[in-house]
């Protein structure tokens, strides 16, 4: 505060008054300028303090994850669940082999009746769509019809009664009269109903026709496409026939179709009897192992319950005692005190509770070898040659799964024999099992797994797609706009692309669900695109969909920064190059782009940061399936749904108890994201610095 110093100068104080007196607003010795400075300075430091607090909070919560997680893993081991998990892996691996082969079998059985099934599927789809759009009228009509039916029954009964009564002279005349009055009433109601029913029927007819006229209703699944017009009109007829609540039976043609389909399937099934028998063999081969697994599982679940009860006991007791302190009601006090005293804190005898499990281990050893042999034999018996595409694919999958099953059982042999419930568990394991864990399973009655891998692969795959699409597009657009486009184009294209960045991501997410996902699936079902891996796609919400939308979102970031980088290349480079006889394009690609390359890389990195940190779009569009995508499909893996690191936080953080392990695990995921972003930004800054040096 230089102005304050002036007051102290001897010159100012010479004749008892300040010479260079400050003018204007003054308060507590500070002028307006000082207050403005304090205001802005204060805001800036507040922002920094908040940032530091956020980082500290994040760090603390995330760091607490590891001890808790370690405790969880320890319980998993102490209760014998780890051992049972090995067996469960074997059973699961086996189930995968069986279900793939089973799908292949049914594809083969349906081979000859494909066309009939297509028609039936079309019929069902269209009927379901029509019923959906006529459901209110349908329900009204049904109600009237039911009522009419009931009334008609009543009428019959009454008529009988009346007849009887009039024949029987002894009958009560009063009763007769009452019955007759009732009959008249009912008949009047029936008369009333008649036009209503007619009206609703007419309405329904209209609605059915309208529905059948809209293309949406005929939006058939890929498998049902390729029907002739005749067949489609047959479907139409059958649907119209079936569209009323009082339709007796299915249309004749549908019944015929069903019969034909059944017959053909039966014939195929006969031909494939061996296949079926092998399949049944596979299914049955796991039975003993499965029941052993069930037995072991029950034991370990009980063990775990005991362990959890022990580990939560002190907290429960503390909560009750706190309650005693707080209540004034003596009865309540006493009740709580009693409950608190009842809480026993006895550590389970781990050796004892695992004893029954150890007893079952030899049994597993006896089962595993024969199971492997039998599977080997059965797997060889499966037909090598299959006719349909689906069957071929599934047989291929089954082969992969069989390999995995066999390896699992082989690898498990020693692991199960050597397993000890009291083997030490290093703290490092709780880190690796988070970073490289293959399962993220929460709220499970078995054990909660917090493995990052499914989320990480989801995020990574989506980012890779987003980058491979957006980078060429955005960089090319930037080069074009900056170097080649005319001024008019520039002034139009640039704001247009930058505008994309202004679209709220939730809007894009909705677009992704409602429009883009549907369109993508329809495109994937085009006949001539079937060579593309992953096509046709069964799902709307997929990695591909999310990746493409994110690509769209990343374009403005990458575009703008690339454009800046190109702009920073001195114009003299371009002039020099042109003067050497280079064409415009040569100049752009041999001088300007290479000069700007570190800026472009920084742009891409920041685009990547934008993509990996994006939440809303992936949450809405990626399908949110927490599972490592199945890479046996090759590039087709992108047609699967996935969950992401950002998505899981947004989805689950609101629902979990604060301070729980699950809560902390989500913070850890956030931490990983934070570190990734930090690294990306750091790398981007570094490359940018390099750019500034030239």
């Amino acid at each position, binding site marked *: 505060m230089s102005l304050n110093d002036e007051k102290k100068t001897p010159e100012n104080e010479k004749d008892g008054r300040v010479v260079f007196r400050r003018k204007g607003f003054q308060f507590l010795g500070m002028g307006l300028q000082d207050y403005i400075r304090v205001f802005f300075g204060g805001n800036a430091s507040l922002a920094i303090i908040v940032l530091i607090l956020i980082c500290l909070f994040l760090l603390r919560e995330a760091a607490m994850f590891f001890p808790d997680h370690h405790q969880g893993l320890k319980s998993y081991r102490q209760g014998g669940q780890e051992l049972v998990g090995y067996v469960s892996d074997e059973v699961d691996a086996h189930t995968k082999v069986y279900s793939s082969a089973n799908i292949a079998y049914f594809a083969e059985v349906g081979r000859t009746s494909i066309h009939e099934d297509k028609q039936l599927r079309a019929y069902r789809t269209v009927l379901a769509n029509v019923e959906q759009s006529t459901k209110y009228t349908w329900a009204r009509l049904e109600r009237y019809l039911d009522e009419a039916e009931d009334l008609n029954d009543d009428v019959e009964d009454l008529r009988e009664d009346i007849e009887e009564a009039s024949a029987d002279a002894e009958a009560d005349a009063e009763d007769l009269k009452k019955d007759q009055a009732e009959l008249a009433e009912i008949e009047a109601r029936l008369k009333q109903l008649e036009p209503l029913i007619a009206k609703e029927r007419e309405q329904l007819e209209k609605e059915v026709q309208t529905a059948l006229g809209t293309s949406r209703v005929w939006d058939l699944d890929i498998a049902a496409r390729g029907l002739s017009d005749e067949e489609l009109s047959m479907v139409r007829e059958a649907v119209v026939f079936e569209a009323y609540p009082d339709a007796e039976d299915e249309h004749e043609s549908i019944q015929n179709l069903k019969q034909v389909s059944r017959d053909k399937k039966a014939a195929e099934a006969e031909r494939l009897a061996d296949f079926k028998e092998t399949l049944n063999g596979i299914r049955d081969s796991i039975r003993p192992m499965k029941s052993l697994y069930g037995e072991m599982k029950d034991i370990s679940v009980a063990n775990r319950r005991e362990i959890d009860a022990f580990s939560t006991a002190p907290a429960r007791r503390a909560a009750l005692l706190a309650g005693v302190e707080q209540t004034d009601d003596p009865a309540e006090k006493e009740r709580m005190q009693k409950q608190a005293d009842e809480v026993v804190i006895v550590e389970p005898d781990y050796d004892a509770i695992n004893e029954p499990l150890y007893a079952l281990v030899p049994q597993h050893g006896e089962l595993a070898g024969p199971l492997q042999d039998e599977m080997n034999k059965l797997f060889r018996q499966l037909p090598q040659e299959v006719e349909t595409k689906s069957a071929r694919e599934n047989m291929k999958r089954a082969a992969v799964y069989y390999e995995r099953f066999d390896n699992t059982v082989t690898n498990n042999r020693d692991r199960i024999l050597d397993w000890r419930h009291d083997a030490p568990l290093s703290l490092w394991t709780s880190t690796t099992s988070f970073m490289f864990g293959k399962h993220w399973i929460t709220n499970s009655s078995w054990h909660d797994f917090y493995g990052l891998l499914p989320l990480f692969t989801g995020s990574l795959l989506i980012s890779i797609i987003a980058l491979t699409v957006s980078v060429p597009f955005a960089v090319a657009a930037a080069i074009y706009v900056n170097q080649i486009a005319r*001024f008019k184009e520039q002034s139009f294209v640039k704001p247009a692309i930058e505008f994309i960045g202004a679209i709220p991501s939730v809007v894009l997410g909705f677009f992704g669900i409602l429009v883009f996902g549907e369109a993508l699936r329809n495109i994937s079902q085009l006949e001539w695109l079937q060579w593309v891996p992953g096509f046709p796609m069964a799902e709307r919400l997929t990695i591909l969909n999310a990746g493409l939308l994110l690509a769209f979102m990343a374009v403005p970031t990458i575009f703008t920064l690339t454009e800046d980088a190109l702009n920073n290349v*001195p114009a*003299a*480079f371009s*002039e*020099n*190059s*042109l*003067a*050497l*006889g*280079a*064409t415009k394009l*040569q100049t752009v690609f*041999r*001088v300007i782009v*290479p*000069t700007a390359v570190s800026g472009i890389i920084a742009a891409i990195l920041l685009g990547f940061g934008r993509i990996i940190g994006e939440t809303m779009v992936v949450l809405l569009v990626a399908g949110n399936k927490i599972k490592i995508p199945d890479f046996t499909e090759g590039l087709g893996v992108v047609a699967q749904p996935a969950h992401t690191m950002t998505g899981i936080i947004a989805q689950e953080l609101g629902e979990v108890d604060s301070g729980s392990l699950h809560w902390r695990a989500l913070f850890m995921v956030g931490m990983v994201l934070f570190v990734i972003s930090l690294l990306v930004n750091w790398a981007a800054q570094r490359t940018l610095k390099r750019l500034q040096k*030239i």
Partner: protein
Amino acid sequence: MKTYMSDQEDQMTLEPQGEDAPVQDQSAVDALETVIEVDHVNFAYIPGTDVLKDISMNINKGEVTAFIGPSGCGKSTLLRCLNRMNDLIPKAGLTQGEIRILGTDIYHPEVDVIELRKHVGMVFQKYNPFPKSIYENVAYGLRIQGVNRKSVLDEAVESSLKLAGLWDEVKDRLDSSGLGLSGGQQQRLCIARTIAVQPKIILMDEPCSALDPISTTIIEELITQLKQEFTIVIVTHNMQQATRVSDRTAYFYLGELIEMDVTTKIFTNPSQQKTEEYISGRFG
């Protein structure tokens, strides 16, 4: 214009000419050949305001021609017309007249600018090597012409650097960045880069104005050597430089060519009053 050349003739023939014997003969015969003809040229950056007015001149093969004149008189503009660098500026162009280089009207619609610039190279005031290695800087012009044979490039790079007098200084670090050289070296690198394409004509726009006196001297020496192989047009504000390096000088004033003559004549006995004033003003 032909008359100017009489005293120049013997000098040209006396000068030693490279290793290439046939070329020597040729150049002796063509000693007086005009390579650039500027024919009543008007030029405007903004339509309606001509900055060059009715310029006519001939520039001879194997000579160094200097453009002098006060700032803003249009020297650079005319120079940049010669390899059509002005094409980069929208709306700018000749409003009248013709420029013929090696007998071709270079503003004719059928002329390929790229081809023209391969024949008419340019060295700029601000030296500006590409952010590539020294080697790649020199090889650039050939690479864009599709030359990729290592041996050809190696040879071209070496001979160009030698010609530019830079070879001995950089031969051990051809792979290091061209931006790591001193200012004078960078300018010579730019000259090497230009001559690697083997143009017929080299245009230089104040090539020494950003350099120290020693680098300037080196480049001036270089220019006098280069004129054995190239026709050179140089814009300069330095009168001494013009006298030292050029054979012929053109004096411009307010977009007009006031006088063009043999350099010694311009500086000792100009025929125009305005030239006299400018030169004497400069000389003190």
